[in-house]
């Protein structure tokens, strides 16, 4: 069977666990995955990426060996939990059952963090109305794939009027071999709740010489009225991964949501972050960052869908490319006919550090009513030679000047990264820049 004809013949053992409604849904999604044609190359959102790169390899198995650095990250995170720098830690080793640890205060506050299949059983009234609501077979073939095959899903629930000031940190490790993982995350934040969730994707083979590893992720997030949710997605998988992630959030009236997609790793990374502003006064901000070097390929999408009036949104998506890295960014702002009095802004800046890099930017607007104020801007260009000259005049050598300017370019986004993670992300980027 060629990869392009891949079908799921039967759901693997173990995935039929959980309540009946869940296994019914999985079966249904399995069928729609098999029925749906592969996205046509060149179709909207598939103009710059070959859909074939995300077709799972039928012979590949779930990974068994965790990536070598995972143990270190794990102990580091557990340390931070001890020191009360984090509220909870979830470590998912290669799609096997996740280790979940959380502070006592969280349990007392009624916060639920559970493996998704368990939560589907024990917290059905919370899970059933939300799971597959935003990401289902209608979304696309690969979304149906995750819907059918997800393993070690995680469910996070923040009750009404509960403020969790410390971040909840999840690590999803893809192991070392050229295998495939299907992580899924469901976050439900109640009315007037507040939480910060860090979702970190790691692991995978270090290069594509023995075939690419594959990761098909899905994140659904529901933010209740007047809630405040920060969701940070750090994708720093190894260079042999083809990484596909779809994230959809629906936020109710008065809710504030900040999404921070940070794409640093993988061989090919296609990510889709969308927020549906579903109630009056909802506000969404996306601060994205993609940093690519060598032959890395990024294909990022953002969506702000204003489905209710008097909502505001803001996107700032920054891309830095070096060596032969390429990036495509497609951002859509959609304002429905009924959504009066909306304000939306979108900005995409691309910094190309050397010849051979390639950046595509497609900021799209679909405005269906007149009572809006909507703007977007996009730029692509090299480092401003005048800035380098200025720094050189002050005795700074070229390489350092370049690093300083890139750091400055990314500073605004990094400022929003919470606490301990900020230093880790900054040093990841610094190391990459110094290696160039």
């Amino acid at each position, binding site marked *: 069977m060629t990869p392009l004809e891949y079908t799921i013949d039967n759901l693997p053992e173990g995935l039929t666990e959980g309540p009946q409604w869940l296994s019914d849904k999985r079966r249904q999604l399995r069928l729609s995955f098999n029925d749906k044609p592969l996205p046509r190359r060149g*179709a*909207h959102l598939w103009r710059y990426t070959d859909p074939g790169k995300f077709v799972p390899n039928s012979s590949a198995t779930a990974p068994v060996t965790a990536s070598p650095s995972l143990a270190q990250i794990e102990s580091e995170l557990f340390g931070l939990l001890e020191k009360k720098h984090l509220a909870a830690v979830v470590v998912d080793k290669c799609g096997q059952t996740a280790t979940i640890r959380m502070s006592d205060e969280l349990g007392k506050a009624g916060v639920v963090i559970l493996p998704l299949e368990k939560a589907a059983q024990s917290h059905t009234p919370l899970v059933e109305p939300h799971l597959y609501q935003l990401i289902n077979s209608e979304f696309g073939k690969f979304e149906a794939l995750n819907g059918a095959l997800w393993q070690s899903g995680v469910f996070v629930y923040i009750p009404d009027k509960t403020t969790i000031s410390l971040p909840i940190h999840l690590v999803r490790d893809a192991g070392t071999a050229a295998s495939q993982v299907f992580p899924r995350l469901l976050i439900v934040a109640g009315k007037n709740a507040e939480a910060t969730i860090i979702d970190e994707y790691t692991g995978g083979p270090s290069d594509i010489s023995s075939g690419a590893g594959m990761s098909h992720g899905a994140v659904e997030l529901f933010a209740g009225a007047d809630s405040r949710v920060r969701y940070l997605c750090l994708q720093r998988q190894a260079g042999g991964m083809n990484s596909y992630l779809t994230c959809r959030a629906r936020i109710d009236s008065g809710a504030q949501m900040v999404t921070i997609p940070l794409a640093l790793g993988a061989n090919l990374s296609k990510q889709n972050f969308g927020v549906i502003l579903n109630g009056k006064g909802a506000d969404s901000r996306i601060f994205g960052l993609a940093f690519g070097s060598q032959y890395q390929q990024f294909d990022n999408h953002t969506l702000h869908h204003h489905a209710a009036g008097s909502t505001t949104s803001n996107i700032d998506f920054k891309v830095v490319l070096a060596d032969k890295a390429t990036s495509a960014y497609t951002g859509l702002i959609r304002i429905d*006919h009924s959504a*009066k009095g909306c304000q939306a802004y979108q900005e995409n800046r*691309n910094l*190309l*550090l*050397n*010849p*051979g*890099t*390639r*950046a*595509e*930017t*497609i*900021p*799209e*607007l*679909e*405005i*269906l*009513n*007149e*009572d*809006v*104020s*909507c*703007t*977007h*801007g*996009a*730029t*692509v*260009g*090299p480092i401003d030679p005048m800035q380098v000259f200025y720094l050189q005049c002050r005795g700074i050598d070229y390489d350092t000047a370049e690093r300083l300017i890139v750091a400055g370019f990314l500073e605004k986004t990094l400022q929003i990264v919470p606490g301990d993670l900020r230093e880790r992300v900054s040093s990841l980027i610094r190391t990459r820049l110094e290696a160039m």
Partner: protein
Amino acid sequence: MAQEIDGQKHDLSRLNEDYASKYCFRDPVDYFKGAKGLDHEAVAMISKMKKEPVWMSDLRHEALDIFLSRPMPTWGNTELLKEIDFADIYYFMKSTDSTKGNWDDVPEYIKKTFDRLGIPDAEKNFLGGVSAQYESEVVYHSMKEDLTKQGIIFLDMDSGLKQYPEIVQKYFGSVIPSTDNKFAALNTSVWSGGSFIYVPPGVNVTVPLQAYFRINAENMGQFERTLIIADKGSRVHYIEGCTAPVYSTHSLHSAVVELVAMEGSYIRYTTIQNWARNIYNLVTKRATAHKNATVEWVDGNLGSRLTMKYPCIQLVGEGARGEILSVAFAGQDQHQDAGAKVIHAAPNTTSRITSKSISKDNGRASYRGMAKIHKNAVNSKISVECDALLIGEHARSDTYPTMEIDNDQVSVEHEARVSKVAEEQLFYLQSRGLTEDGARLLIVNGFMEPFTKELPLEYAVELNRLIQLEMEGSIG
């Protein structure tokens, strides 16, 4: 000021009254019509009627195969595109026997049509040549003597092919081959009429060259083909404008316009498109700019039911410059899917795209663009600016720009804004005694100004009036 605006309004209401007689008339005309529908037989008939050389006939048949084999576009307004019935269209019509060289020889009923469009007046004033297209073929053609003396060729495309077959063969389809898209293939297979212009090296055409187009029969497609070649160091400005009577069923207009700007030359191509509200206007326009050449598209889209038009400039020579200035007005039931494309394929090339759109009532205006910089096009610059104004709660505006940048020594900027007429601006003008209508009109005219000021005076006046007409009763 307020009085002046109200005076204009008064003037406008009269404009509205004679709109029907001015733009919606139809004269009884004896036509030669081919059969409806399109096949190799029909194409052979067109070619035979025109007594064309074999290579052109072959090109038509080849293009027809391409047209038939290509699917309809899967993007854009596919709902509207689906409604086109290619079998129900006349692909060739001829209303007079030969191309006329003198205004007096033009048949009376056709003259009447053009009189109402004001061609003779325009000519009297300062226009160089008139190439008036009535139905599928150019029936009237005049050329001022000084143009001929300078060696400028300004003919309809059919005559161009007869008189200068070697130039036509060299450039025809060189910028837009039949394989480019389905509608370019359609045009190549059934083209008829259009303009053919050649400007010799170093010649500056000081007056704009101008042609009027009209469609005047139901279910008739108009497939004109224009080719403009500006040789080294020459300058030319061509104006294309059109109005059409209102029809009861859909009509298709699918033109192809090719511009070749040789080293150091300058071409400006101005269009004011005001097709009737039932016409599909699916046009392919592209220019190739060689070393240090400049090409400017000035493109106004007011009419039609659906327009899909993305003027393109390929900057293939070092130092070439391109500019695209476009305005779209989408009123009731209209979809203006317009945009611009620039392809930078040489170093030190610059381009600027300015797009303005107004969506009113349930009209939809889309900007669809492409800005591409190839690997070798170092030190290139692109600046794109899109402004959209929404009037009425059912109006819709879309922006789909695409920027593909394959090298790092460039500067690319894109900006877009979508908003309604600002309350503060209205309030400011009203507090100075303008009526709300007057204030809104003033703001809309101001919004369009960067475009109107690029037009020759009589066009600017016409455009302002058309917009005023469109804007009437926009409150409530």
